[in-house]
């Protein structure tokens, strides 16, 4: 039993780590641009597929570095050419747009890489279990969690210390004032969108090593990421982090005792939060209205 629980806790941590990366990217874009990026799961898949295509030439480690950057570039191109034209409109339009974009990207992935699942090769060192008794924990799992921790710490340091990061955070609170102070908000939003896509691309490469590749591999992560944002509190990136971990662990622990309710428990947590603390665990009053 102890092993089963340990197995599911590590599972929960890993799933939670994916929720966190996805939700942080979504949250960045939502906070600064007021856009729900329905295509975020497809940017994840794109990152994974790019790594699959690049790893024979660049090797795994090269692909791990390059494909998130490429994903971000593609995101920037889409934002520059299309999404920025609809920022000033009613939110219904940006939702419909990214919704359509998700369809197109999924179909494009299916067209380019085929409808069937593909395996993602891993370096031998990562594929080994860490000890014989903990055979279910491979080094890859440790590696994923480490990468996510480094990324999250890096992201928060960037947002707190760098000039652009400070501007992004200030823009979340009051974009108009930031704009009046002479910041080029258009470029800031583009950069921010790219940053969100970078996180999605990175989760895609990591997820590919764990579950393999298929055209809709990001779909199952999208809704839990929304819920992580709602639970954590809209407007708070720390909240998103906490929200992702909470629902990841809750889902994994429910799997131990009652597997078929593991999805339902996520929704139950969301309802409870909306009922008891509508602004979310770490959300600030008024951010969501």
């Amino acid at each position, binding site marked *: 039993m102890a092993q089963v629980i340990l197995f599911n806790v590590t599972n929960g941590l890993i799933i939670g780590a994916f929720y966190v990366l996805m939700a942080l990217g979504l949250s960045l874009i*939502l906070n600064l641009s*007021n*856009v*729900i990026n*329905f295509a975020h799961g497809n940017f994840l898949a794109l990152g994974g597929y790019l790594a699959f295509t690049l790893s024979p030439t660049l090797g795994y480690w090269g692909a791990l570095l390059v494909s998130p950057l490429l994903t971000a570039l593609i995101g920037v191109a889409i934002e520059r050419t*299309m999404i920025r*034209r*609809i920022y000033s*409109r*009613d*939110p*219904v*339009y*940006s*939702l*419909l*747009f990214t*919704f*359509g*974009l*998700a*369809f*197109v*990207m*999924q*179909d*494009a992935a*299916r*067209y380019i890489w085929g409808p069937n699942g593909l395996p993602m090769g891993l370096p031998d060192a990562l594929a080994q279990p860490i000890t014989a008794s903990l055979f279910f924990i491979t080094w890859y799992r440790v590696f994923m969690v480490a990468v996510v921790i480094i990324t999250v710490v890096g992201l928060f340091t960037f947002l707190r210390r760098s000039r652009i990061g400070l501007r992004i955070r200030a823009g979340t609170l009051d974009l108009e004032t930031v704009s009046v102070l002479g910041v080029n908000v258009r470029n800031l939003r583009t950069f921010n969108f790219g940053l969100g896509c970078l996180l999605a691309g990175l989760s895609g490469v990591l997820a590919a090593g764990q579950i393999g590749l298929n055209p809709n591999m990001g779909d199952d992560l999208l*809704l839990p990421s*929304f*819920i992580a*944002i*709602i639970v954590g509190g*809209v407007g708070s990136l720390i909240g998103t982090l906490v929200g992702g971990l909470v629902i990841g662990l809750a889902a994994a622990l429910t799997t131990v005792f009652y597997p*078929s309710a593991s*999805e*339902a428990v996520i*929704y139950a947590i*969301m*309802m409870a939060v*909306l*009922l008891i603390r*509508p602004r979310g665990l770490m959300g600030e009053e008024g951010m*969501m*209205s």
Partner: protein
Amino acid sequence: MTVALSTSEPRRLLGRDQLTLVVIWMALITVPLWLPLLGGYTALAGRVLVFGLAAMALNLLLGFTGVLSFGHAAYFGLGAYGAGLTLRYLVHSTPLAMLAGTLLGGIAGTLFGLLIVRRRGVYFAMCTIAFGQLWYYLAYSWNSFTGGFDGLRDFQRAPIALGPFTLDLTGGGATFYFFLLAIFAVAVALMGLILRSPFGRTLIAIRENERRARFLGIPVERHIWLSFSISCFFTALAGTLYALLNNFADPLTLHYTLSGYFVVMTVIGGMRTFWGPLVGAAVFVMLQDYISSMTVNWMSFIGLIFMLVVLFFPRGLLGTKGLLAKG
């Protein structure tokens, strides 16, 4: 019945509004005559009516209250499952199945509305998406009761006994289409009445300027909640009709993809017009039917339609210029 947009126009015997009305109803009533000539089939027209009703119900909230729900498939699907489960497990009666489905979806919406009525804009939308997906997972995983991923089968719409007559709905032909049309007409008339009432005018006032409405002493949250609930009841009614139309309820009727379809139908037709969503539903259903019969890459085409509508055609077919201005 273009609601509340033409108050100051002088009344003519047959104005533009009345003309629209005549054209739409004539077209709907004569569907069984002309649709086969165009290569369509009556079930397709039934689908237009059902999705049109759902999109019009959504538009009560989206276009006339200015509140964005991206999770209306939940109430549509709950209506469909409510009707299907009633027919399969409880009674073999079409009206009771419709009643049960409408109540199920409507009450779920009413209760959830209480939780999110203070949210606005994209945050409201995000909560509706997330909550809607709960029902999808429920229908998907409760295999023994709902049929799981394969959907709920093994139920049939029942004939309705009207005194000495029996309305035989079991066939696939025109009788059932006219039954759908009758329900559609009643529902649409009710929605029109609601929008013309002082309550409906208040919703438009909230859409135009929420802060001003609040200063006037209008209980904004209560109005948005009521509008959300009414919209959910009508959407659920449309869902029950969908289950009857197909003799089948499918977990995909609960999925947020369908919510997106409802929103795009509304936008294609014209968000702030009364009949726009029906026109949008007709265009979308026909396009989808055509595209999915032509290519396996239909997803790209549907997605492109979404993107192109947003970029180049945001006002919709019936929309007019001044109405896009943000409140």
